[in-house]
């Protein structure tokens, strides 16, 4: 975890130094006066030795100072604090909906097609999931907008602040991962049902409720949660596209506009926040996994 954080800090610091050519020229354009270039360079601290720059960057970071935006000339930290909640709400709500929806769907389809029953349902489900995985969320978003906003006029096209404006972005972000997670639950449950200990459970002629919920479910939670964790970080990334389509003032719209404008301090800030979010989510997933696995010492203590 500490190593990951270190790598992230170094990587974000490195962005501006990895830009081919002169980053300041890239920002200001080839015709900018030399004096302005020099001033911007010293504003960014680029005229100092690399190690000193890095030290200053880390010290400022610890103090919560992420530099000043080249576009707005406001502190990057302020903008991020203002933008992050929208992204978090969008990703969080989508994840909860995807997870809550996927579990029962996956269990139900797996149980109803187990050992080759109802072949058509198995085929239809896997085809649907295959399609939903390939359809990227931004295309799904476009389709949803066209259907619900343009054709039926039941939901707003874009914007942020009203709960109704949350519906389409969340759907667009949640449907794909929900299908995927449901499929994982489905496949894992079928694998668990094949295990010898499930034969042991069946030999006791327990009611199906106990067989599935007590014996099968705990054994597939680990893999479902691992995938769920990956899905959650994937959703954080997915917000970038969804925010752009629905004009949501989050981190995604911020990073896209700052990459286009070559606003390096802002880019560094957003990347750092994204990375921190991903790392935090991974940590949470790991902790949850450890607490439910009887083989880890945490559960015994």
């Amino acid at each position: 975890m500490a190593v990951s954080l270190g790598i992230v800090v170094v990587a974000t610091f490195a962005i501006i130094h990895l830009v081919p050519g002169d980053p300041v020229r890239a920002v200001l354009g080839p015709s900018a006066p030399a004096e302005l270039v020099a001033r911007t360079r010293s504003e960014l601290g680029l005229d100092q030795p690399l190690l000193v720059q890095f030290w200053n960057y880390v010290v400022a970071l610890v103090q919560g100072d992420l530099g000043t935006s080249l576009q707005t000339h406001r502190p990057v930290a302020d903008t991020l604090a203002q933008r992050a909640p929208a992204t978090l709400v969008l990703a969080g709500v989508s994840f909860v909906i995807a997870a809550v929806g996927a579990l029962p769907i996956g269990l139900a389809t797996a149980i109803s097609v187990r050992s080759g029953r109802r072949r058509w349902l198995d085929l239809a489900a896997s085809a649907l999931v295959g399609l939903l995985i390939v359809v990227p969320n931004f295309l799904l978003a476009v389709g949803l907008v066209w259907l619900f906003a343009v054709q039926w006029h039941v939901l707003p096209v874009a914007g942020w602040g009203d709960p109704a404006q949350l519906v389409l972005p969340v759907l667009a972000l949640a449907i794909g991962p929900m299908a995927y997670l449901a499929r994982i639950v489905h496949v894992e449950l079928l694998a668990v049902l094949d295990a010898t200990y499930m034969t042991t459970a069946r030999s006791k002629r327990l009611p199906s409720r106990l067989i599935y919920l007590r014996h099968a479910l705990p054994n597939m939670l680990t893999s479902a949660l691992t995938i769920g964790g990956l899905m959650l970080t994937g959703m954080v990334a997915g917000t970038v596209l969804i925010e752009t389509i629905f004009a949501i003032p989050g981190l995604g719209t911020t990073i896209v506009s700052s990459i286009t404008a070559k606003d390096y301090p802002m880019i560094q800030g957003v990347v750092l926040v994204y990375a921190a979010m991903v790392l935090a989510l991974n940590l949470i997933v790991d902790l949850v996994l450890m607490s439910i696995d009887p083989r880890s010492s945490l559960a015994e203590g």
Partner: protein
Amino acid sequence: MAAQISPMRARLASPVGVTTVTGLGVVLLLAVFGPILWGTQAEATSVADRLLGASWQHPFGTDELGRDVLARVLAGTRTSVLLALGATGIAVALGIVLGLLPTVLPRVLRRMLTGLIDILLAFPWLLLALFFSAIWGASATGAMLAVGFAGIPAFARLNYTLASSIMGRDYVRAARIVGVGPLGVLVRHVLPNAAGPLLVNAAVHASGALLSFAGLSFLGLGVQSPEYDWGRLLREGIARIYVNPMAAIGPGIAIVVTGLLLTLVSDVFATTPRRGALIRNGLRGLRPARRAGSMRAASASPLELADEAAVVSSARELRIAFPGADGGAVERVHGVDLEIAPGEVVGIVGESGSGKSITAMALAGLIEQPGAVTADELRFRGVDLLAPSSPVSKRQLGLELAMVFQDPLTSLNPALTIGRQLTEAVEVHEGVSRAEARERARQALASVGIPDPERRLGQYPHEFSGGMRQRAMIAMGLMGSPRLIVADEPTTALDVTVQRQVLQNLRRAQALTRTAVLFISHDIALVAGFCDRVLVMKDGVVVEQLAADRLLVDAQHPYTKALIACVPDMTSDRTRPLPVIGETGAVRRAS
């Protein structure tokens, strides 16, 4: 070779295979000839035709410069495909290098490299791509590099996993022993075995690259005007979605269809057929046969019979079939007759594929679909196992029938405590209180010689050794009122000294409860030494039945004699070659 090609041909000829191959062929042709055929039309501006909706002349409409969107989508195939392939190429090439490198590096460097890859893997592809495109800026090459580099960690990890699993194989060890160096091992053994899965994964990866690329172009970070690819066209189309939805849907379809085709490659070419397909194929022709005997057998009331049953378990003309590889049903047990008297210890001996295990499973009523069981009669203490189960029969089977399986690692549920697994059957079927069930479980564990049973009840299976798990399984059978314990190779996975302890426990349990035991093993000496009566099975047929103590004297069937003769024991003549079993199953004395 022949054995591996023919299923591949079959898969290529399947509807999915044909669709995938022709679809990808069309995409490839479009990438080559698209710009030549539609290039001019795609860039011809016409003020009069600006922003037209979909029509026969312009199926996807026109853009703000009056260019035909369909022509642009077709001509844009080349750019889209090339950029996706370029990004995939970067990810695959560097991914292979970074994935194979750790296998030849010293341990410290290997740990560092794989650790770094794992950390990078935690970050979603799109975020990594954004990071790289921040460096290389918003341009087509920048985006290609970004998508390519972002894909490296995933591909490297895949490669590493694949390579290390191959490196752990004995054939790689064998090559090292004869003096093949690390590089030679990579080239001669690892790459040929990894090539198939890598190719398949590269195709799936290309699908991901295509979608990511479309995403970046869509965000305005990829291909820049006046160049165009599908993502760029989509971005332009969405701006006018209210006026002309087809301008957005057209490029969207192109992206989804191509992506889907690339993903399907894995379904068609992956070397391991999915288990779903196997099961599905096998089902044909099985259903009519299921439970054919149930009509005849369901006459008498089960409970009445149970009390005075002279036999614990009986099977007449038992046949068991499973789906075969070619789709039909394959009968694996061909009409077995068997009766087990109360308290009797019966053994079945046979080699792998003899059908001894599935026979035992059928006697316990545990063969599930897609397996199909038919018999003139199949009963456990009066319960007709071919008829649908009732609450009464479930209760009886749950309390009176116990199982011990071969692999102690997998026969207990890893997620539940031993106590829970022991107590649940009596809690459910006898309505015993939790406290009483737990007390019974404590006694059961103690009776199979597990020390400190109170503490052991709260533990999980992974805290038990292999021998203790088998004893816990026996204890589980003692919780109710066992009438039959089916023990399928219960000691095969155990050391001989542990085997002895487990058998001691099994015999003690048998003596204590007067339960019958069905004991399955490949070891004829073990079966004969433990059981009262021995059945010899071969290829799904019982070839001989004997009293265990008459085995050496009375064995008539050549296969039984061969089994007795071909296994070395502590009295075998060491100066002579062992007799071997010939094709007919008869003993052949080596000269």
